[in-house]
């Protein structure tokens, strides 16, 4: 039968005026890479669930999108990730929420669907389940990008004093932002420009 795949990388206020030609090219290239990864699975007879996973993992690993690497920061300066997956044949589904050490949340959601009786697991419990499934846990630093860190800093500067971010010097994220290597990273440099982006106001 027919095979086909479609993806999205998030919706919102995306203005051409704020996009450099290089960044726009980078987005198109990453979208195409994700599509081809998923389509390859379908072409070789693989399942739609595996194709969806393959496409999403490419976008989770890219700092261009708000998922996995490049995820936004919470008020508490952490990254909390959510994911879900569903198969149309059996209406079986799996979801996880509020995890901070799972490199590819869509893979854990798929394990919940296939290897548990549950539909959704959250927070520490989801990470314990991940452990039981031998899923690799990464350091929470893995998710840090300057772009997202600066977005949080900018927001917290505008918030009432009680929410102000402390300037303690030994704050590991603050230190990480000053890491020249990070700043030299091509993607970080490009996406750091996005801090000029007029963010919309759906925060917190």
């Amino acid at each position, binding site marked *: 039968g027919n095979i086909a795949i479609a993806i*999205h990388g998030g919706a919102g206020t995306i203005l051409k005026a704020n996009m450099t030609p290089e960044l726009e090219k980078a987005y198109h290239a990453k979208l195409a890479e994700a599509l081809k990864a998923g389509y390859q699975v379908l072409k070789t007879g693989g399942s739609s669930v595996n194709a*969806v996973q393959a496409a999403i993992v490419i976008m989770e690993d890219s700092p261009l999108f708000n998922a996995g690497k490049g995820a936004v920061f*919470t008020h508490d300066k952490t990254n909390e990730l959510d994911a879900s997956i569903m198969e149309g044949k059996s209406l079986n589904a799996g979801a996880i929420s509020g995890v901070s050490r799972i490199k590819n949340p869509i893979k854990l959601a798929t394990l919940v669907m296939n290897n548990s009786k549950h539909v959704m697991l959250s927070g520490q419990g989801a990470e314990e389940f991940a452990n039981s499934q031998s899923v690799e846990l990464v350091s929470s630093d893995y998710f840090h990008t300057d772009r997202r860190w600066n977005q949080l800093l900018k927001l917290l500067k505008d918030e009432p004093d009680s929410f102000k971010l402390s300037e303690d010097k030994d704050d590991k994220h603050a230190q990480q932002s000053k890491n020249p290597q990070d700043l030299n990273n091509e993607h970080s440099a490009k996406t750091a420009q996005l801090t000029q982006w007029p963010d919309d106001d759906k925060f917190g």
Partner: protein
Amino acid sequence: TVGAVALDHSGNLAAGTSTGGMTNKKFGRIGDSPIIGAGTYADNQACAISATGHGEYFIRAAVAHDICARVKYKKVSLQQAADEVIQEKLKAMQGDGGIVGMSPTGEPVFSFNSSGMYRGYIDKNGKIFTAIYQ
């Protein structure tokens, strides 16, 4: 937020969504992405949907399931069902965002009411398409 929907050789649909959530979120807040029926839904008889946008509205509007239910019960096309929910129902609630969908015969569908959505497809003819703006 990122998402994907697919149709395989056996005619099975699947949908998936993954997100970092909302900047500056507090109290363990989650949006629609991990909520089956709101941010993600798949049913071989109707469609596969992955949604992205202001989660609270997508949950209250049960967006992903609502689109599939309209296809199934109203017998309308996936594009029409998606537009009814995203361009009318969600907009009336002041909710912004969009969805990517796949029909049981392999038609990819987009519907979004914001200025842009990173999106793309490879259709049943193998044609690849990517886009950002409206």
